[in-house]
């Protein structure tokens, strides 16, 4: 079940009431959270629950082993360190192997067959199409980060199997993140939670805002603008292609940022604070800033556990920042899915970041020669061009991300400039136009609240009397009841 589904509307109140009716003891609350998490996970893929349970057991055991064999600080116990490296290697192999097996084995076999056929070699590798355990990409990274943190001594290994089980099965972030660190969640799980009205209010507000982003904006744009255009690009005009592409940028943002807000909101309802996943990424004026603001928890994982150890370690990548960036975004592309479209998307962003880094270095030399370049960088014109380039680049790279295959990508990209089609999406009915206008207004309003002035408005809104806030929430719910689309949809990022 997804957060926006009807089933969740029954699941959440029941779990909420029972959870808070329990005595305020961490063990009891965690046990119930595990039950709720298992039920939530089983609603997606009951048959693959064992994959999830086994993976959690393996990492719990390895982390405990790491803690047990860790030599005391300052001691030079080579054998213990070797055992720790072996244990860490086992966790990495298990987690990455599991990810590759379920997610990539079919893709690699398929690609190898195509390549060998093109080389004129006989090839017929069996192509396995396996059911993907839901959320695999998220909980694998979360557990791997935990084992790495234990290995490096950044967090102690969790002693209680129950607490660890609650950590990995915490249902608000089980399916699509945010990818939390052990240091963020385990201390919260070890303490008993108590009902707090402010936290409940903030949780409800975040959930409602995220719900509107997902269930109204993202679903409307997906159904009426994006899906029709990408399904059959030839019938849509060049302007229709651009609408589809910008619509997809807005859809994927509202879909995932909305999901993340709902996850944060539900987390608060149960007394937890989850990390923020989006921070107004469309305000970014360079790509690095963009990736600091978009899917924050994935990107900090990639930089903490892949990029930083590589470029700051002693291996071939040491000091090779460009190669590190290309690798990280190659991995990020593949993480999103096993298609060449995602690989191309990752490569484009890797190259984009390298170009930006080189340009930054070049610009610094200009600044050193003449301070006027420093002033230019602060000018509105420079910022406007930088913003256009950043967001324009991001939007254009969504073509391979959404179109899928390379042929489809090229075909869609051509359609952005010339298309035999004549149609425009979402203009066929007054209702579609109405919802399109509201979606644009919603996005504009959301981002207005992210500006400096907007933060003041937000503070003023938060200071409104409770009754006025209640009326606003009620009006929003009525609007959603009347206008949000009905046909079922899942979260775009739940498929990754």
């Amino acid at each position, binding site marked *: *079940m997804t957060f926006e*589904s*009807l*089933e969740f509307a029954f699941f959440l109140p029941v779990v909420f009431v029972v959870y808070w009716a329990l005595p305020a003891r961490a063990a009891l609350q965690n046990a119930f959270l595990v039950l709720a998490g298992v039920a939530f996970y089983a*609603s*997606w*893929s009951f048959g693959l629950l064992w994959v999830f349970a086994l993976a959690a057991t393996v990492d719990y055991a390895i982390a405990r082993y790491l803690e047990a064999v860790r030599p005391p600080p300052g001691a030079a116990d080579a054998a213990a360190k070797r055992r720790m490296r072996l244990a860490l290697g086992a966790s990495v192999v298990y987690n990455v192997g599991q990810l590759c097996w379920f997610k990539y084995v079919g893709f690699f076999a398929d690609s190898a067959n195509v390549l060998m056929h093109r080389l004129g070699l006989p090839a017929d590798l069996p192509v396995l199409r396996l059911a993907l355990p839901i959320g695999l990409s998220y909980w694998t990274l979360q557990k791997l980060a935990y084992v790495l943190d234990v290995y490096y001594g950044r967090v102690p290994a969790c002693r209680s199997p129950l607490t660890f089980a609650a950590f990995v099965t915490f249902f608000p972030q089980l399916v699509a993140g945010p990818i939390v660190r052990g240091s963020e969640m385990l201390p919260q799980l070890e303490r008993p939670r108590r009902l*707090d*009205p*402010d*936290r409940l*209010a*903030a949780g409800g*507000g*975040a959930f409602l*805002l995220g719900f509107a982003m997902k269930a109204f904006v993202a679903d409307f744009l997906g159904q009426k603008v994006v899906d029709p255009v990408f399904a059959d690009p030839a019938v849509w005009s060049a302007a229709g292609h651009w609408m589809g592409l910008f619509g997809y940028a807005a859809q994927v943002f509202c879909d995932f940022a909305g999901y993340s*807000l709902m996850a*944060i909101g539900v987390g*608060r309802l149960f*007394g937890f*604070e989850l*990390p*923020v996943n*989006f*921070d*107004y990424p469309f305000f970014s004026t360079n790509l*690095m800033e963009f*990736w*600091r*603001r978009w899917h*924050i928890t994935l990107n*900090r994982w990639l*930089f*903490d556990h892949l990029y*930083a150890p590589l*470029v700051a370690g002693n291996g071939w990548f040491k000091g090779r*920042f460009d190669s590190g960036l290309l690798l990280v975004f190659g991995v990020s592309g593949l993480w999103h899915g096993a298609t060449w479209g995602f690989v191309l998307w990752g490569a484009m962003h890797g190259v984009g970041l390298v170009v930006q880094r080189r340009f930054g270095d070049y610009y610094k030399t200009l600044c050193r020669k003449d301070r006027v370049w420093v002033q230019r960088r602060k000018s509105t014109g420079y910022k406007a061009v930088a913003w256009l380039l950043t967001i324009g680049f991001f939007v254009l790279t969504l073509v391979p991300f959404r179109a899928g295959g390379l042929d489809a990508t090229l075909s869609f990209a051509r359609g952005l400039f010339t298309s035999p089609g004549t149609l425009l999406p979402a203009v066929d009915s*007054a*209702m579609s136009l*109405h919802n399109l206008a509201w979606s644009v207004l919603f996005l504009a309003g959301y981002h207005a609240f*992210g500006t400096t002035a907007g*933060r003041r408005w*937000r503070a003023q809104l938060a200071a409104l*009397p*409770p*009754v006025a*806030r*209640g*009326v606003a*929430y*009620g*009006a929003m*719910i*009525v609007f959603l*009841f*009347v*206008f949000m689309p*009905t*046909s*079922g949809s899942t979260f775009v990022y739940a498929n990754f």
Partner: protein
Amino acid sequence: MADSASLRASEGDDAALAPAPADTQAPGAAPQDARRRWRALAATVLAAVATIALADLALQRVRPLFPPVRHVHEGVADLAAGDPTVLVLGSSHARSFDAVKAAVESRTSGRQRLVTVPVEMGGFTSYLWVLEHRVAPLLVARRASLRHLMLVTTFYDACSTEVSRSDLNVPARAWTIGHYLQDVREGGLSDFNRNYVRERAKGLAPWSVLVQDRGAGNIAHALRQLVQPETKGEIVAEARAILEAQHAGCQDERELVSLARIADFAAARGLALTVVLFPLVPDIVSEQARRTTLAWYDERARNLSIEKDFRVVDLTTSTPLVLGDFAPDLDHVTAAGNARFAAWVLDHDLRWLLDP
């Protein structure tokens, strides 16, 4: 180069919505403060609920709640409880046959007994599901008198929507909890089986137009009518255009395969099958629609009737029903229209119903 610290969200992100975590607040905060915060939360929730309730009442003035109508599970229950001679299965149009049923049962002194099973939004695939999963077990058990199966259809039953959309589950209203659990066990919660929950959830709030209208779009349409009212002529023109355009989307051979299987179902159980092509508003049936959308369906149904030996009764434009006999949706017939329809068909194409 970015590190994890710089990758953290900057100030002003959506965490700003969060309060300070409870455990970081001053210990031993005054109980009055706690009471004040709980009161504020309660006031917010109550104001939100009151707003929704008032909006619901206000919207009922714009779009009144529909009176309860008969659905498939009620039809199946009547079939299980009674011993009918004619089973009338169809989409919402099957409800028009409640008037026929009353007239027939009165005029034959109960010797001919009809039971109507309306499958809202139904097409041939969903009719087949209802027959195989809900009707067949009842026929095996008893129902000795059942002789006729009447299928109330239009060209719309051969549209591709139902078989091509995994999220559409028309027979969900006919599901029992067992069908739902079995589907969940086999494939988890899905858009398909969610239809069952959605239908049952609507039953929890029959007094709320917001709940009842969810997904139907009638409130939005009524609001638009307030702002920009459409004339009857515009509505008719729109319906005419839709009928003509459906030529493209309503030629799904897969639906006709289901019709063939329904014919086999009837033949295997010794039931005489009659396929009724239900009346359309005469004003929306243009010459173009007659030549395209309607001709395709009519021809397929007739060809199949020869192959499978069943009767086709085409009432599309032959009845005396006029625009005023139809509801504002230009699809369903009013109560007065149904009475006229019943009287007319029993004197003409369905006269045989009076001769059990």
